[in-house]
């Protein structure tokens, strides 16, 4: 597999690549972060006219929506799409493809090493612009920017797994000094046949990011220890999730939660008065609406082992519950029992979809 180096910033290099893919009709559209010209707001854009790439900000450290979630639905159209994805978005896409919610057939994935994203509030109120220079400086030194989502600071999978193209952006060179595209598949080789740049057969060396990985691990241990202390037992759960207002925004923005009608919003959880009255006579009191904590337990059961830790859930929570920390940690612990890492490989089957005659025999 080859690599292509360009004497331009990572962002410019990516934009050139996207323009090339559109102009040479290798794809029908490209998916990238964009800055809305009229208002300066950020969004995810599906662009099919390379003339509109001026608005693109493919490496913007912001996530208004998990792009893996959006891409997976679009990929079912059969049209060809090249998508710039953060590592967790790529993993989310893989998890969705496993659930038949997307297809990789006509998708060219472009990913990059990631230093984390700013919380939505900061992207929306303009403070992200002020903090960006420091973010770039800190991440180029392999350190963790202080202003990103807590799950970003603790993320262990900030190097993309298995994308068609990997762009090296963080910690390997100073911003503006040049970038390298590592081609990881036949699909990528074929698509970039005519793309201009200096070719050699360099291979991406993740060890250059070992220092960052160590810092992230430390932060992860700190975040999860503190979270486990707060969240343990029923009392802990009630303490952390007690102020949930039941908006279900967390599940709505979650890339793994794909159900058109969530079980918890269906008739299964729509109680009639006799249920309430019977409950009341037994317990003396109950909360309205019901099943506040149950919703989270259910969601944990349904999807936590596929949680990619993107942090969208915590970011949209109106009361600041650290949903992502809880789900990411629980997911990691359950997935590890199966030696499973969500999004690592399409070949790895979802643990609950696999029947093994002999499993967890020590539990018996």
């Amino acid at each position, binding site marked *: 597999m080859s690599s292509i180096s360009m004497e331009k910033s990572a962002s410019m290099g990516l934009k050139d690549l996207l323009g090339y893919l559109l102009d040479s009709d290798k794809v*029908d559209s490209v998916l990238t972060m964009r800055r809305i010209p009229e208002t300066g707001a950020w*969004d*995810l854009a*599906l662009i099919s006219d390379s003339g509109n790439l001026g608005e693109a900000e493919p490496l913007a450290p912001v996530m208004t929506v998990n792009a893996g979630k959006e891409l997976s639905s679009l990929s079912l159209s059969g049209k060809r799409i090249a998508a710039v994805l953060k590592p967790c978005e790529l993993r989310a896409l893989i998890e969705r493809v496993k659930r038949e919610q997307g297809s990789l057939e006509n998708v060219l994935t472009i990913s990059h090493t990631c230093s984390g994203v700013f919380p939505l509030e900061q992207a929306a109120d303009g403070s992200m612009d002020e903090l960006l220079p420091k973010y770039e400086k800190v991440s180029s030194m392999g350190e963790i920017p202080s202003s990103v989502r807590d799950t970003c600071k603790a993320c262990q999978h900030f190097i993309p797994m298995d994308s068609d193209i990997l762009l090296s952006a963080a910690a390997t060179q100073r911003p503006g000094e040049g970038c390298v595209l590592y081609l990881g598949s036949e699909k990528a080789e074929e698509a970039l046949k005519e793309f201009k740049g200096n070719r050699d057969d360099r291979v991406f060396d993740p060890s250059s990011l070992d220092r960052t990985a160590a810092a992230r691990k430390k932060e992860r241990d700190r975040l999860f220890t503190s979270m486990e202390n707060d969240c343990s037992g029923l009392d802990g759960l009630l303490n952390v999730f007690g102020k949930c207002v*039941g*908006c279900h925004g967390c599940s709505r923005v979650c890339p793994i939660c794909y159900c058109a009608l969530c079980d918890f919003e269906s008739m299964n959880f729509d109680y009639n008065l006799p249920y309430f009255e019977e409950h*009341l006579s037994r317990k003396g009191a109950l909360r*309205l609406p019901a099943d506040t904590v149950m919703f989270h337990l259910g969601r944990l059961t349904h999807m936590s082992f596929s949680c990619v830790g993107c942090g969208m859930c915590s970011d949209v929570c109106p009361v600041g519950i650290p949903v992502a920390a809880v789900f990411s940690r629980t997911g990691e612990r359950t997935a590890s029992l199966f030696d499973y890492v969500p999004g690592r490989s399409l070949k790895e089957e979802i643990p609950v979809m696999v029947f093994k005659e002999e499993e967890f025999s020590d539990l018996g």
Partner: protein
Amino acid sequence: MISGEEDRMDAAAGTPYMLRVENGPEGSVLELLGHVIGSGKADALILPFRVPSGDSFAWILFSDVSLLKEAVPFPATMPVQGGKALRSLTRKERGNLKVIALMRPCEIRAGIELSKLGQVNTENLILASYDCPGAVKLEDYVSDPASCDSSFSDMRSRGEPSGNVRSTCSTCMDFSMVDADIHFGYFGIEDGRMLVVPGSPAGRALLEDLNLEEEEGLLPQWKAEISRLAEKRAATREETFRETEKRISGFDGMLATFSNCIGCHNCQSACPICYCRLCYFDSEVSGNDPEALMTAAEKRGGISLPPDRIMFHTGRLAHMSLSCVSCGQCSDACPVSIPVADVFSFVAERTQRTFEYKAGKSDGEALPLRRFLKTELDGVHDMVKDAESEAASHE
């Protein structure tokens, strides 16, 4: 004074009662509610309680009166709209138990709108409200409950919204008596006493035989204070709506206001009126299938994702602004601080005024879109004619 509120106060079902509240209104109100349960006139209550972490509140339906002392009848903030709580309980049918719910005026109004929409069954439900100075923004409350409790207490004593109160509270004209069965009035009445106003025969029936004192001429001072506060609110309302109108005018205005929207639909979830299990904008008929989106991207050179976010807000306005009670839940729920409630409360005033309809009244008036009038909105016909002739003149 707001037209309607004066009438409502006068039409109150008989003479109001008085409650002595020397040790603070909370304790006396809870004691009163306890007596109602104790006397068998009601079976259960819906009141706010602090959540375990202490930084928010939850609605609790309870029949065990020993829990009363932990209830917080006048919470500083509104995490879950009371209308939504009522919806979760009584949507399907009337209950066997008689339940009293003590909520803010806008929550009562939402409950009444929902009953017109078939989502709340008010039989066997007694709605009680109280003079409301506003609700503190949820995000602010969660980050500093103690200081918000204190600023709310201050707001209550002055009867005015201030500090980190929701912006829709500052423009709210329905902060006192609404169409509840019972209303607790205290603005403008000196410490130590509170009015308990029956708003309906059901409310009066509940309060009779509780040996409550009749009010000693407190009505005039209360009404005068409500009037005074209403005038101030009316001025703020007019000014705020003028600003909002400018801000959202035209597509550019809508784009500027909703540009940061990420399509999370928290506003819709938090809204007491939005009850659809499957929102139109999530359904197949809204044209968000992959093929349609890819085609749109090719035709236009690009599209924004998730798709149709401004359309969602426009659609939600069309669907529910006639029932909007301007409670402000939507703004509080928004993760990117879009002033959704300011927009919706302004548009709601306009749409409701157009149909001479006021959301939240239980006077038997049908929802405008559910009644057919042979002659209606005469002016629209002329507007369409003018627009057509103008379009023709440009061809």
